[in-house]
């Protein structure tokens, strides 16, 4: 645990002393809960359709695959016409594209960002590295199978997949969302202990609360 995260007493500029416990003060410690779908099926279908047609991607490139996402904004591929766009903040994003290898250090940031996203949220694994480690299969500091740490909705295989493959992946993800099968956020909440145990197994310097939204 880093020093600045420990519980301590701080003297303010006006001479007043107060206690600070960063992990409790700055984060919410409530575990995620399973969020039920809308009461009526028609409404849920409408929402699922809207979710599938308005996919907001978190602008967070984790590995070399992030380079394949940039051309999607250009005239040649233009993902905007499919309702896909990039958001700079996890609060407003729905889709997390794990783009390529994921080092343990990045995994920590990925978990924090993922948990700040709002339900329903989707994860797409891009490239072979997220499936079985790919060319980093014997690396000491990358994770090998992404679905042990986060609920993955879809994989796009290849090393690297072309932007066309990504577009096809988005199209497949849309079908999943529309049929109501992309319930990764609820799965994460259901198997929360299992995911947390896996995450803590690889992240040695765990200096954040278990659930930090």
């Amino acid at each position, binding site marked *: 645990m880093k020093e600045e995260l420990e519980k301590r007493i701080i003297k303010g500029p006006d001479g007043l002393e107060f206690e600070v416990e960063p992990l409790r003060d700055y984060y919410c410690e409530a575990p995620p809960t399973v969020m039920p779908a809308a009461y009526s099926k028609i409404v849920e279908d*409408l929402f699922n359709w809207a979710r599938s047609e*308005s996919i907001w991607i978190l602008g967070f490139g984790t590995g070399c695959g992030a380079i394949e996402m940039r051309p999607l904004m250009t*005239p040649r591929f233009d993902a905007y016409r499919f*309702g896909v766009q990039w*958001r*700079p*903040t996890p609060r407003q994003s729905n889709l997390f594209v794990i783009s390529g290898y994921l080092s343990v250090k990045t995994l920590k940031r990925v978990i924090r960002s993922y948990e700040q996203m709002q339900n329903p949220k989707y994860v797409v694994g891009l490239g072979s590295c997220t499936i079985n480690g790919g060319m980093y299969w014997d690396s000491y500091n990358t994770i090998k199978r992404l679905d042990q740490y986060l609920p993955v909705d879809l994989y796009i295989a290849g090393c690297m997949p072309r932007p066309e493959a990504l577009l096809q992946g988005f199209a497949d993800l849309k079908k999943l969302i529309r049929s109501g099968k992309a319930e990764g*956020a609820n799965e994460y909440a259901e198997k929360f202990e299992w995911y947390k145990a896996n995450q803590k197994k690889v992240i040695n310097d765990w200096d954040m609360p278990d659930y930090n939204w």
Partner: protein
Amino acid sequence: MQFEWIQIPYALLTLSIIINFGLLMNAFVAKIGARVGRRVGIPIYQNYIDLIKNYGLRSSITHGVMFYLGPVFRLTGGIGLLMFVPTIYGSVMFSNFSFAGDLILALYFIFFGTLGMALGAGESGHPHAAIGVSRGLSQVTMAELPLALAVFSIALQYNTLSVTEIVAAQQGGVLNWTLFTNPLAVVAAMLSFLGSVMRPPFDVVLAPQEIPIGPPTEYHSSYLALMQTNRVIFPIAKMVIFMNLFFGGADNWPVFFVKIFMIYMFAVFIGVVFPRFRVEQSIRWFLIWAVPIGILAVIVV
């Protein structure tokens, strides 16, 4: 004119027309931008889907009471601004509650949403939100100055603060518009308009490349959807005021749509040509170019 209950459904009708028009116009402008860049661009109905999606997200978290009230205040500012000016001149249905408010109230409503947003975004505790808010408040305050001067000038010119009477005085030909009878005030106000539509060169408040979208960084789900709704209403409400004060108002909907679109395209054209100002640059720009014209407008009148 007195308040009558039938005005409430009329006002709701105005509001729904404005929201639909705004959603389509924003998508249309985005599409023009995309076509200029040789892209296909978003579908014209994309903004509707985004709204439904954001209202339909299952979870949302709060950072406190003001965080919750921020978007509400902002929406109040937008709707309030729209309700107290006559949308369609001479129409009983679409004059809304313009008999109850005057220009000063409109000026107040323009600022109201920004203040609410500042409080809400401040409570979210995100540093980018705080930076965005401080930039936004200083820039909007500065941009408001030439507008206030222009409004004084107009009020002196027509000897009234009532928007309806100002529109009435401009009827009967293009040359009766304030644009031709008091061009200095119009120039000052249009320069001030640039500062408040969040398009370049004055979009450093949101600045997606520097401070990830600024004040709304922490806003999500329904909060964000409320703000998106206001994003549609507020600029149009503001343009309605401009149209009424400077461009002769509109006595039917087609004229209204065309005039609003032209006023908006003015900001869009400026935006695609000029790069983004930093805050101190934009404040200096308003002080040097817009404010003197506003003062001149007051003096000349």
